[in-house]
Structure formats: structure tokens, C-alpha cells
């Protein structure tokens, strides 16, 4: 800690009284006995200190850093700055929070016909469709949806230009029922950016009939519709464990124990998790869902499906309120090019919603090579482009957040059915990459799953019929014709553009070949010695911000007064606690300290100058980038206590 303070005093600003990393510790390292309430207030007021960026600890010793001179004495990883010192001793994969409470606690068990994990577009569409079928056939099935966010919609983040195709099928009267879909797309622009200029290009999209919405709001409305139909939705409960019977069939899930302290002991308000058993279990956790990944691995669903691994991108988004004269409801803009280089796939989006609100975001494909790339910083400097910043000047940021998304498309769809249930939505991966839309396909996959599940429970037909119904639906046709755009960029930026133009204008999706993806994202990170650290501009506090400001003012829901949610075991687990010091830092310069949009991972120098990984788990936005991008796949994202994490309302 002290080492870090001395390094930041290099900066000229006299305001750098507090080290950057002190500003976001919760509770602060320097006074571990502080009562949480007063320290929370201090941290809130100090969160606006902006000084060193996360590259500073590493750049302190730029020359000698990647030399063989690092000490092979990693004995002291033990103390992760006060976060969960006890649990890393658990060997291998830690399946869920069961291990924390020590002795096994007897859990209550509740039975449903269908248990759905995740109240997002796919999960709620499946629930609604199930209840609709029940009404049609005069049958009753109990449907339970568990959601880890504090309320429905709290963990939903998306651009979003919404194609109402699936919603028209599910709830055709959505307009009369006052769905929050009000702004039709009015203009569709596509720019290629250089550092100073914007070159308009023909828009590859056809957004006629689509709407600019907040998916978080739409999902909240879907939740109301589901409850009206009798679906039981329980927000604030995180499904952390999959339940199997003796034949290895999935029989349901169990929620987290709540009220477990950081060291694993039970607090006063300890509440054991609850088992929710379903005749069918549907996983609708969104991209890289933690339980979905477990099921995919266990039942080898990738190999049985379309065969390729999944590839991902990280999207970082802000919702701004801009001045009325700059706002044009329905205006849609996408950009490619600057600030990303030609080896990195990604771009920006800028959508005008209603009430002077503008959604602006930046997406970076996670198969980037340069370990010094910081997607958050790329987003911040993008906003300063002369074609973009005038819009944001004079505006205020309302919300900030980040989430990973699937880019694998058709080639990466896993076989979605396993004994006891199925995977739907982005947990499987139905996003149409060239269209950058996945909400409509996620919803449709939920609806198709509901129809299969209904037939399984009501007539006994096999659940495997879900796969066939997917393959004969418009999801399949759409994803099939979109399958070659993204993989074309494996050949480079301009070849990718050329191939995409060929696909779009000439072949129109009827190409006879299917391109493959490159290496998995985590293997794509090259060694740090091949690159130089990127010198990102400092945020100006008006258009660009540092991570603490974004987090603390615009996104996270902290419960520090009554429920003390920060006092829980860190939900980010290291399979091998020595790897960060042995591999991530010397070989890759600690990329997790850069790609995490919530500054969860920080390397802090201890008294002897060794860099130790500090995990600020309470900052986590549940984006899953670390689970995807960690070079050795050493970081496992597991679900924290329900009710924490971001509190998105208009994202």
C-alpha cells in the first residue's frame, strides 16, 4: 500500500492525497476495524479523487518488469487484501457457496413444475409462454423464476435497438398493454472513424420497424406480465448450485446461503439457501451464465451442438441525458475504426432514446491480443472524438454498466438440452452478430423451449424436440445467414470488411462455406513483452470519467447500512491462487486489472515490492469478462449473495 502511495505522488496534481486503490476499498485496508458505516461515507466522498490509473503499479518498473528478475518467492499470495482469506484453500473448483457455512445446513426444499434461472428476456418469455399454454389447454403448471438481481431488470444491460419479432408472437397487444417501447428508429448511420474524422458509410443495417428501447425497462414490464399470468418471480435470490439426482439428471437448483461473513462464519442474519426442485429446469442466465457453463461442461454440450467454442465481446455502456437541441429520438449510430487498431474487432453504438436520454457504448471483442488494452479506457477516449463529444457536452451521465455478449453465432450454439432441462437465451448464444441483436432470438428461444417443455410435462414427449424446433425456426435461418461476418475478421480488419460486404451485398447469406472462429478468447492474449503499455488520456470528468466515478455515482447498488452485503466471501474464485503472481503478472502484465470494467482486480505492491492480486469483489458488475478472458482460465466467476451487483433501471 505504501508503495502505491509513493508512486502516485509523482503526479503533479496536489489533489492526489489518497491512493487510487484506497479510494475503492471496502472496508479500507488501512483501518480494518473501522465500522462500516462511517468508512462508507468517507469512501463516498473520496471517490471523486482521480489520479493514478491501473497501469501505474506496473509501469513503475517498466524496464525491469518483464525481465526474468521477478522473484520466485510467491509465498505471500495468502492475504487478498482482506477479501476471503480463508476460502482459497478450497482445492480445485469450488462448486458453490455451500462450503462456506462449514457444517452442512439442512435446506428447505420447494417443488415446482418448471424452475427458470434468470428473469431476463429468455427466462421471462419462457415463463409467459408456459402460462399461456397452460391457459389454452386448461392445465396448471407451477413456474418459478429466480433472479440474482435485487429486482427484475437490475442486471439487464443492452444497447438496445429492439426487433419486436418475437414480442409480436408472444404478446401481440404489447402496445395497448403499455410496453415501454415508444421510440421507433428514425435514422440509421454508420461511420468509419479516424482519430479526427468520421467517414459516413452505407449502413449495413435495416432497422425499419425496430425501436430504440431500454431492455432493462422492457424486462421489468415482461416481469409484470409474467406475474399477471401467475408466474412466481423471486428477485434477490441467486441460484448457486445445480441439484442432481443419482442418475445425474438435473432436478433443480439451490440458492446461496445468505448472511455468511467474509471468513465463512455465519452472521446474525444467516439464512440457509433453499432448494428449488423442478421437473424441468431452464437456465436463462445470459451470456456466460455460471450454472449454464457448468452444465455445458458436464454434459459436453458444445461438442454435441454446432461444435465450435463460444467467442465473446465486452460491451461497456453509459446512458446520458443530453440537451434537448442535440437530441433526436430514434437516431441510431454505429462506428468502426478509431480508437481500436486494425487487429482488434469492436466499435461503438449511440442510440437516442426518449426524454433526452442517449445510450452510448463501446464493444470490444475479447479475442484482442494486446494485454495492455483497456476496453473501459477505449470507451472513454472514444467519447472525445470530435464527431461524438459535442453531443455529450453539457449532458449528465445517468447510469453506467458493462456486460459481455456472445459473438460466436451459428457455429458456437451448444446442444441446449440436458437430462432434466435446457439452456435458453444468451446462455446458449443466439445473438445475431452483424445485426448486433440478440434480444429477439433470446425471447424466441425461450418461447420454443416453453413449448417443448409443455409437451414434455403434459404429454411426455422428449425434451430433445427443443433442438429440432430451434433448427426449424427463424432463429436458425437468421443465424445461418449471419454466420460468416464475424469470423471473416480473423483475417484482419480490411479483409473482414471486404468479406462482410461480399456476404451482405452479393451472397446475401447464401455462401457455400462456413468460416471457423480463431482461438478461444483467453488464448488470444499475446505476451506483454510484445507490446508497450498504452498511454490512455486522463479523464476530464466532464465527458470521460475514471472507473470509481463511473461505478460509485452511476451503477452499483451497495447495501452497507443494514444488510452489510460487502461482508461476504468474494465470489470470484481463483482455481490456483499462485497463478496471478506466477503467470498473469510476468507474462501478461496482469490483464485483468485492465479488462475488468469495475476495477475488481488490482495489483498492489506489498512492503517488499511484490505485486499481489487484490480482488475488490464488491465492485463486480457481473459482466463475466474475467471468467472469459483470464489467460489460464484461472478466474471462476460464481454467484454472490442475491440482491447485490448493479442496479440498472434504464440500461
Amino acid at each position, binding site marked *: 500500500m505504501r508503495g502505491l502511495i509513493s508512486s502516485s505522488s509523482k503526479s503533479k496534481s496536489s489533489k492526489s492525497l489518497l491512493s487510487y486503490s484506497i479510494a475503492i476499498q471496502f472496508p479500507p485496508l488501512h483501518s480494518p476495524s473501522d465500522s462500516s458505516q462511517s468508512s462508507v461515507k468517507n469512501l463516498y466522498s473520496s471517490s471523486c479523487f482521480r489520479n493514478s490509473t491501473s497501469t501505474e503499479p506496473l509501469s513503475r518498473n517498466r524496464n525491469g518488469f518483464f525481465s526474468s528478475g521477478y522473484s520466485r518467492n510467491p509465498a505471500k499470495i495468502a492475504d487478498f487484501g482482506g477479501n476471503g482469506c480463508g476460502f482459497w484453500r478450497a482445492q480445485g473448483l469450488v462448486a458453490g457457496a455451500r462450503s462456506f457455512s462449514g457444517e452442512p445446513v439442512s435446506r428447505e426444499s420447494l417443488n415446482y413444475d418448471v424452475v427458470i434461472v434468470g428473469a431476463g428476456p429468455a427466462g421471462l418469455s419462457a415463463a409467459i409462454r408456459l402460462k399461456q399454454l397452460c391457459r389454452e389447454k386448461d392445465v396448471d403448471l407451477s413456474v418459478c423464476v429466480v433472479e440474482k438481481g435485487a429486482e427484475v431488470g*437490475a442486471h439487464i444491460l443492452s444497447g438496445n435497438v429492439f426487433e419486436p419479432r418475437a414480442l409480436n408472437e408472444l404478446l401481440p397487444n404489447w402496445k395497448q398493454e403499455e410496453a415501454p417501447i415508444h421510440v421507433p428508429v428514425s435514422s440509421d448511420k454508420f461511420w468509419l472513424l479516424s482519430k479526427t474524422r468520421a467517414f459516413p458509410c452505407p449502413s449495413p443495417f435495416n432497422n425499419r420497424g425496430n425501436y430504440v428501447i431500454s431492455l432493462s425497462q422492457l424486462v421489468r414490464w415482461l416481469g409484470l406480465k409474467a406475474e399477471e399470468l401467475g408466474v*412466481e418471480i*423471486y428477485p434477490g435470490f441467486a441460484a448457486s448450485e445445480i441439484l442432481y439426482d443419482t442418475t445425474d439428471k438435473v432436478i433443480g437448483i439451490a440458492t446461496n446461503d445468505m448472511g455468511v461473513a467474509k471468513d465463512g462464519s455465519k452472521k446474525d442474519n444467516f*439464512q440457509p439457501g433453499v432448494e428449488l426442485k423442478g421437473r424441468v429446469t431452464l437456465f436463462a442466465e445470459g451470456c456466460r451464465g455460471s450454472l449454464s457453463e457448468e452444465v455445458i461442461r458436464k454434459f459436453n454440450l458444445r461438442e454435441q451442438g454446432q461444435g465450435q467454442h463460444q467467442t465473446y465481446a465486452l460491451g461497456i455502456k453509459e446512458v446520458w441525458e443530453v440537451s434537448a437541441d442535440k437530441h433526436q429520438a430514434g437516431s441510431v449510430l454505429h462506428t468502426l475504426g478509431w480508437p481500436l487498431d486494425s487487429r482488434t474487432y469492436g466499435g461503438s453504438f449511440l442510440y437516442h432514446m426518449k426524454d433526452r436520454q442517449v445510450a452510448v457504448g463501446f464493444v470490444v471483442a475479447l479475442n484482442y491480443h494486446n494485454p495492455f488494452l483497456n476496453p473501459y479506457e477505449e470507451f472513454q477516449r472514444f467519447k472525445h472524438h470530435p464527431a461524438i463529444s459535442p453531443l455529450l457536452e453539457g449532458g449528465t451521465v445517468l447510469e453506467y454498466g458493462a456486460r459481455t455478449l456472445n459473438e460466436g453465432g451459428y457455429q458456437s450454439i451448444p446442444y441446449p438440452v440436458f437430462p432434466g432441462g435446457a439452456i435458453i437465451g444468451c446462455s446458449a448464444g443466439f445473438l445475431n452478430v452483424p445485426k448486433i441483436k440478440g434480444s429477439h432470438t433470446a425471447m424466441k428461444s425461450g418461447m420454443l423451449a416453453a413449448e417443448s417443455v409443455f409437451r414434455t410435462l403434459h404429454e411426455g414427449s422428449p425434451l430433445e424436440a427443443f433442438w429440432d424446433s430451434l433448427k426449424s425456426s427463424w432463429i436458425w435461418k437468421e443465424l445461418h445467414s449471419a454466420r460468416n461476418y464475424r469470423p471473416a475478421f480473423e483475417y484482419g480488419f480490411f479483409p473482414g470488411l471486404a468479406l462482410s460486404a461480399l456476404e451482405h451485398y452479393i451472397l446475401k447469406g447464401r455462401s457455400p462455406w462456413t468460416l471457423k472462429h480463431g482461438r478461444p478468447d483467453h488464448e488470444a492474449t499475446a505476451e506483454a513483452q510484445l507490446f508497450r503499455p498504452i498511454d490512455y488520456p486522463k479523464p476530464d470528468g466532464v465527458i470521460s470519467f475514471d472507473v470509481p466515478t463511473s461505478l460509485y455515482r452511476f451503477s452499483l447498488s*451497495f447495501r452497507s*447500512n*443494514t*444488510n452489510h452485503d460487502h461482508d461476504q466471501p468474494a465470489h470470484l474464485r481463483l482455481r490456483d491462487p499462485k497463478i496471478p503472481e506466477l503467470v498473469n503478472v510476468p507474462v501478461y502484465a496482469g490483464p485483468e486489472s485492465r479488462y475488468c470494467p469495475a476495477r475488481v482486480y488490482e495489483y498492489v505492491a506489498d512492503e517488499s515490492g511484490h505485486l499481489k492480486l487484490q480482488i475488490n469483489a464488491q465492485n463486480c458488475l457481473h459482466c463475466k469478462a474475467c471468467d472469459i478472458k483470464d489467460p489460464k482460465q484461472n478466474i471462476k466467476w460464481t454467484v454472490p449473495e442475491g440482491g447485490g451487483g448493479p*442496479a440498472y*433501471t434504464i440500461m
Partner: protein
Amino acid sequence: MRTTTSAASRETASMRIMVAIKRVIDYAVKIRVKPDKSGVETSNVKMSMNPFCEIALEEALRIKESGRASEVVAVSVGPAQCVDTLRTGLAMGADRAIHVEFPGTLYPLSIAKILKALVDAEKPGLLLLGKQAIDDDCNQTGQMIAGLLKWPQGTFASKVVLDEENKVATVDREVDGGLETLCLDLPAVITTDLRLNQPRYASLPNIMKAKSKVIKKLTPQDLNIEIRSDLEVVQVTDPPKRKAGVILSSVDELIDKLKNEARVL
């Protein structure tokens, strides 16, 4: 007034606790002022039970679980969505809930009058409230209702001990000078402060059971209360942005600034 032991234990064993709870903007939300400055933006904003009301409800539940009370009734006054907050209260363990529906703005005195009518009907032995609501920070309702009922009050409670035999509540209050201990004859009004307890999580099975519990609905007219207020909110604005601090080089400069710029000397 001390009654005989047997009558007292019979009465206390059937003592009812009433807890008043308020639905407010969730404390973690960053609030924004509406562009027309008429108030704070509440649409698309997460609402939840006032944290101090949670503490009050938790205390009531603990008293019931220790056998000193037989029933906990949660009450709330406000628009239709208050039902959600009452359901959370039922899920935490309250036995019954009463919702007095009123969609407009409510001030502490109106709430106190409504609560008085409910107290007269339900006859609880103890009325618990949070010390203040985090949206208006009024810190008045508890005190006002104690005045209307002419009941003793123990506000800012950080510890509550009930002596059911003698029908006395011993309350430690957090006051500016430290802690003050009061003995209150029951029935009494107690408002709760932060360090009284840590509220429990509502468990999933309890949330499920609470969905089917009945919430009694009333309106102010049912209670013969007319809601009127002598207060009118004229404008709500953001506080002025804090200016950067200035580092001064001498005491003389400080005095000069205090005299001429801040004009406090």
C-alpha cells in the same frame, strides 16, 4: 400504574406490536431532481422499505420470538405500491398487514393522525417506527404520534428491553451527548436508530407464503381522517456544487477571508 401479576402476564402475552413502515426510494439509488424542480425523480427508480423501518420491524419480530408479544402488525400509508413493501414485511415475519391507501403527498402530521386512528382500533401495547424516513429525513412522525396518543416515547433507540411483568420498556437512546436510558410505561412509542439490530433477510419460503397473506386495505375516509397540509413544496433543487477548497498560507489570510468573503466575522 402497576396491575397484578397474573393479569399483567395475561395481557402482555397477548400484547400486540404495531410497526409503521414507509416505502421510500432505495437508499443505494442516486437520486435526481426532476427537470421541472417539483420534486425528486421517482419513476423507473428502485423503491424499498425504509432502512430504519426494517430495523423497527426486526425489533418487533425479536420481541415476539422471545415470547413477550403475540402478534406483529405492519402498517403503511401511501400509494397502491406500498403493498410490495408490506409483503416484504410479511415475508420477514409480520403476522398481519394494513395498508391505508392514499396516492397524494403525505406529511408527518397526517401520518400521525392516521396511525392514531389505527392504534385506537388495533390497541397495540407497543408502537415501533423508524426514527426517520430517508427520503424526507423529517424525524417527526414518532414524536407526533406519541403526543397525539399521550404515550411515552423513546426515540433513537439503540437498545430496547421489555419487562413484561411490570409493563415497562427500558430504552437506551443515542443522543448527542452519548447514551440516555429511559424507562417507559407501556403502551409506548419507540423509534429505532441504526445500531439497534441488523434486520434479517426474508427467506424464500417466507416470501412465497407472504404472497398469499391478506393485506387489509383502508382509506383515510374509512378512518375519518381528512388529509390536509399547511405545507406546500415550492421547489426542489440540487445543492450548489461544492467549490474546490483553497489552501491558505497564513492565519491572517484566513481571518481576511472569513471577514470579507464568507462574512462570518
